[in-house]
C-alpha cells in the first residue's frame, strides 16, 4: 500500500484507469494442489490463547505532539500556537488524563482508550538519533541498534522464537504482509505471505503448478513467493463477500487493506501476525493537524483502527495492534507552517488484549532546555522496550531470545511490564 488517503491530492485527481472495473481473483484451487500447500489447521490447545498481532508502520515521521497533545504542559500551546486555530476548527481535543488529549480526529482511538483497550506511549523513540527517514525506518523495522543495512526485520525474527507449540501452528499459518511490497520488518528467513485487495484476473491452476515446478528446480526465492501467493489465494477465495467493489485507491484502498487483513487474521487457519504501512506523515509544509494534511491523515488512521476493531471483533480480546513511526518532528513550527524531522514521538497500542486506558510517558517537558538538541521532543522511552514487552507478554517469546535475536544487543533496554493481559 503506497498511497495515503484523503490528503492525497492525486486520489482526487484520479490519474488514469479510474474507469477500469476492478476484477478480483477468486481462484478455486484444484484440491490436490491446495492440500499440498494448506497444511491442516491445528486447533490451539484448550484454554490457551490464540494471539493476533498487527504492526502498522507509519512512514514519514508522525508529529507525536499533534497526535497526543500534552495540553497540561504550559509550554505546549505557546510553542504550537500556530496550529491551535486549525486544531480547534476540527473540534474539541479528546482528553486522556490530566496531561494529554488526543487529536480531535482520533475519535475511535479515544473510544478504545475509554474502554481501557488503547494505550499511548509518548516521548518514545527507536535508538536512532539522526534525522534520515530511510535510516530511521530501517532501525525501526530491522530492530537493530543502529543502521547496518541488514535484510531481516524484527517481526520475522520474532516468528522463529514463538513458543514451540505455537510456533508449529503459527509457521504453518504464516505471517502476512499487506500490500504489494513486503516491508523490511517482515522480511527474513521465515516465509511470509502477502495480500493486496486488487488483482488482474486468474491464472489457471495448471499454469501455476507448471511454473512452480520450474521455480522449485531453478529459483527457490521465486518458488517460495509463488507458493505463498497460492496460500493467500486459497484463503481469500473464502472471503469474497464484503470487500469494496470499486477499484480502490486513497482512503478506500487503505481501508480495503485493513478489512482484508482483518478477515485473514480472524480465520482459524489464517495468519496470526501481520504488518502494513501507511505513508505520508512527512508534514514539512501546511501541516494543519486539525483539518488539513495531518488532520486528514489522522482521521484516516482512526478509521483504519475502527475497521480493524470491527473486522477483528471475534478475536479482539486476543489482539494487539502497535502503530509506530521512525521518529518525531521538531517541537517548533518551521517557516512553512509545518515541522521538520525530529526525535521523540508517540506510539499507539490497541486491542482487546492491551491493558489500556493510560499514557505511558516519562514526560521530558517542552522548555528549551528540555529539548533534544534544542529542537526535538527528548525521547525518554525506548520503543524496543514497548515492542519487547508486547512480544513477550502477548506472543510468549522468550526474554533472552528477544534480547539477543529479535532486538540484538538490547539486553540493557528494560521491558516495561504489564502492557498486555
Amino acid at each position, binding site marked *: 500500500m*503506497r*498511497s495515503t488517503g484523503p490528503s*492525497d*491530492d*492525486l486520489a482526487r*485527481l*484520479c*490519474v*488514469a*484507469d479510474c474507469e*477500469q472495473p476492478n476484477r478480483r481473483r477468486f481462484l478455486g484451487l484444484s484440491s490436490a494442489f491446495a492440500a499440498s500447500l494448506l497444511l491442516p489447521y491445528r486447533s490451539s490447545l484448550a484454554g490457551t490463547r490464540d494471539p493476533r498481532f498487527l504492526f502498522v508502520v507509519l*512512514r514519514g515521521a508522525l508529529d507525536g505532539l499533534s497526535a497526543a497533545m500534552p495540553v497540561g504542559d504550559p509550554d505546549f500551546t505557546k510553542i504550537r500556537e500556530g496550529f491551535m486555530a486549525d486544531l480547534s476548527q476540527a473540534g474539541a481535543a479528546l482528553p486522556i488524563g490530566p496531561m494529554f488529549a488526543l487529536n480531535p480526529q482520533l475519535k475511535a482511538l479515544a473510544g478504545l482508550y475509554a474502554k481501557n483497550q488503547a494505550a499511548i506511549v509518548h516521548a518514545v523513540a527507536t535508538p536512532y538519533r539522526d*534525522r*534520515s*527517514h*530511510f*535510516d530511521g525506518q530501517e532501525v525501526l523495522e530491522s530492530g537493530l541498534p543502529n*543502521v547496518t543495512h541488514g535484510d531481516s526485520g524484527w517481526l520475522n525474527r520474532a516468528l522463529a522464537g514463538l513458543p514451540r507449540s505455537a510456533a508449529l501452528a503459527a509457521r504453518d499459518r504464516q505471517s502476512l*504482509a499487506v*500490500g*504489494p*511490497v*513486503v516491508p523490511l520488518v517482515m*522480511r527474513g528467513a521465515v516465509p511470509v*505471505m*502477502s495480500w*493486496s485487495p*486488487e*488483482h*488482474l*484476473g*486468474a*491464472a*489457471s491452476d*495448471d*499454469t*501455476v503448478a*507448471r*511454473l512452480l515446478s*520450474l521455480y522449485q*528446480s*531453478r*529459483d527457490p*526465492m*521465486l518458488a517460495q*513467493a*509463488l507458493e505463498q*501467493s497460492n*496460500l*493467500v489465494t486459497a484463503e481469500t477465495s473464502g472471503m469474497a463477500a464484503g470487500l469494496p467493489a470499486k*477499484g480502490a485507491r486513497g482512503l478506500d484502498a487503505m481501508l480495503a487493506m485493513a478489512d482484508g487483513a482483518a478477515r485473514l487474521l480472524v480465520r482459524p487457519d489464517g495468519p496470526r501476525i501481520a504488518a502494513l504501512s501507511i505513508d505520508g506523515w*512527512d508534514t*514539512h*509544509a501546511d501541516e494543519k493537524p486539525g483539518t488539513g494534511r495531518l488532520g486528514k491523515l489522522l482521521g484516516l488512521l482512526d478509521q483504519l483502527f475502527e475497521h480493524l476493531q470491527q473486522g477483528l471483533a471475534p478475536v479482539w480480546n486476543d489482539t494487539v495492534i502497535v502503530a509506530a513511526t521512525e521518529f518525531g518532528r521538531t517541537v517548533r513550527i*518551521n*517557516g*512553512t507552517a*509545518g515541522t*521538520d524531522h525530529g526525535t521523540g514521538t508517540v506510539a499507539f497500542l490497541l486491542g482487546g488484549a492491551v491493558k489500556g486506558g493510560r499514557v505511558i510517558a516519562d514526560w521530558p517537558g517542552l522548555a528549551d532546555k528540555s529539548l533534544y538538541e534544542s*529542537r526535538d521532543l527528548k525521547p525518554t522511552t525506548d520503543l524496543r522496550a514497548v515492542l519487547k514487552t508486547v512480544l513477550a507478554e502477548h506472543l510468549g517469546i522468550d526474554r533472552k531470545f528477544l534480547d539477543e535475536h529479535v532486538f540484538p544487543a538490547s539486553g540493557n533496554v528494560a521491558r516495561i511490564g504489564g502492557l498486555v493481559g
Partner: protein
Amino acid sequence: MATGQRSLIWQRFGLGARPGDLETSGPSPVADLMAEVPTATAPAALKDLPDSPSLFAVYLKQVAAKKAAASMADLSSRMEAPPPPRAAPGSMMNPVRDALLDEIAGRLKLARDARIGFAERLVLFWSNHFTVSASKQQVAVIAGGFEREAIRPHIAGRFHDMLEAVESHPAMLLYLDNERSMGVASKAGVKRGNGINENLAREILELHTVGVDAGYTQADVTSFAMALTGWTVAGAKAVDTVPGNFQFRPQMHEPGAQRVFGRDYPEGGQEQGQVILADLASHKATAQHIAFKLVRHFIADEPPKAAVAAVAAAFERSDGDLLAVYEALLKTDAAFAMPLTKLRPPVEFHLAALRALGAEAEPPRFMRTLALMGQRLYRAPSPQGWSDDSKAWLAPDAIRTRLELSVQLAARVREPKPLDRAKAILGPLLTDETATIISRAESSQQALALLLMSPEFQRR
C-alpha cells in the same frame, strides 16, 4: 566475454530483447551500449509534449475552473436550481491526467522502439535517484516535464549540470517544500515572521549527493537550507517570468555567509546555493554514493567493492562526466558476470514483456498494472524512490500479479511460436528446464506466459 553473455546487453543493461535483436550485436558490447546513451537526450517521441510552464498553466486553469464550478454550485444551491450536470467519465474533464497519459504514451513508444533500452534504463535510474513523487497535485502535473527538462538533457553530460537542473526545477522545489522556505532575516521573513523549511537541503545531502554517512551535521543541513532560501517557483501572478518557471526571490533569501560541510560560503544570493551544489557535485563522497547506487541498480543487490571503486574513481577522475562513469561501470568485471541475480522491478518487467511479445499497452492499463505490482508510476513512496533491492519486489502477491499480467499479455499474441521466441529473446540464457517446460505447455499461450515468468526472464 563468452558469446552467450552478449544477451546481457539487453537483459542486464537494457529493456530486454525483441525477437531478432540479439543478432544485431556488434563486436563490442560496451560500444553497443554507449552508442545508445545520447538517444535519450531529446527523443522525437517526446518532442511535442508541453514544457513545465505550459503544464503548470493547465494546472492553474484547472484550479480556477474548480473554484468557478464551486461558486456556481454554491450559487445554484442558494437559488434552489439543480447544479450543472457533471461531465461523463472519460470526457475532457481532467487535463492534468491527460497530460500524464500523453507522457506515458511517449515513454511506452520509446521503450518499444529502443534498440537496447540502456538509455531509457538510465533515465529510469536518474529519475529514481532524483525522485519527485506526484503525491502533490502541482508536482503531478509537471512530473513528466521534470524528466524531460532536468534529467534527459544531462543523461550524457555532467553530474553537476543534472544536479543543478534538478534542484532548481519547479517539480523538485515543490515536492521538497522549498518554494516557501524563507530566511528569518530576509525581507519576507521579517515581514511575515516565517523561516526555513529544511526538507530540500537535507535530501540533497542525504539522497542526491554525498549520502547519509558522509558526516554532515544538523547545522550543515540548516545552513544549506538557509543558502537555498529564495529558490522558488513563479506563481500565477509572476511579472518578469512565466508562471511555473524557476524564480529566485531575493526578498526571501537569508542574508549572510553560510558554513556547510567545512566550507564557508559568502553571501551571494542565488549563487550561494549554486556554489554549494557545485562543491557537493565534486565531493569524493558523492562519487562514492553515485557509484554505489549505479552498481547496485545494474549489477547486484550487494555491489562488488571493486566495481564500486572503479566507477567512483572514474567519477572523480572525470569530475562527474557521466559517459565516463557509465563506461567504467560497463567495463567492470562484474558487469557481464553470471549468474542473473537481480529481479527486474515491475516497470522493467512490464516493458521487457511487451518487447518480447511485440505487444502494446494502453497507458491507463499500464499504469494500473504497475500499481498492482507495487510500482505506481510517478508515485514513489518517498524521496528515496523505488527500492533497488530485489527482495522488496518478491512479495508473493506481486509475483502473482506478474503471472496474471503474463497470462493476459500472452493471450493476445497472434503468432506465439513460443520456443523460437524464447531462443530469440534469451539466446544462451535460456535454460534446458525452461525450454522443456515451454515445449511441454498445454497451449502456446501458456508457453508464452511461462516464458515471461521464467527465472531467466524475471532476473537480470
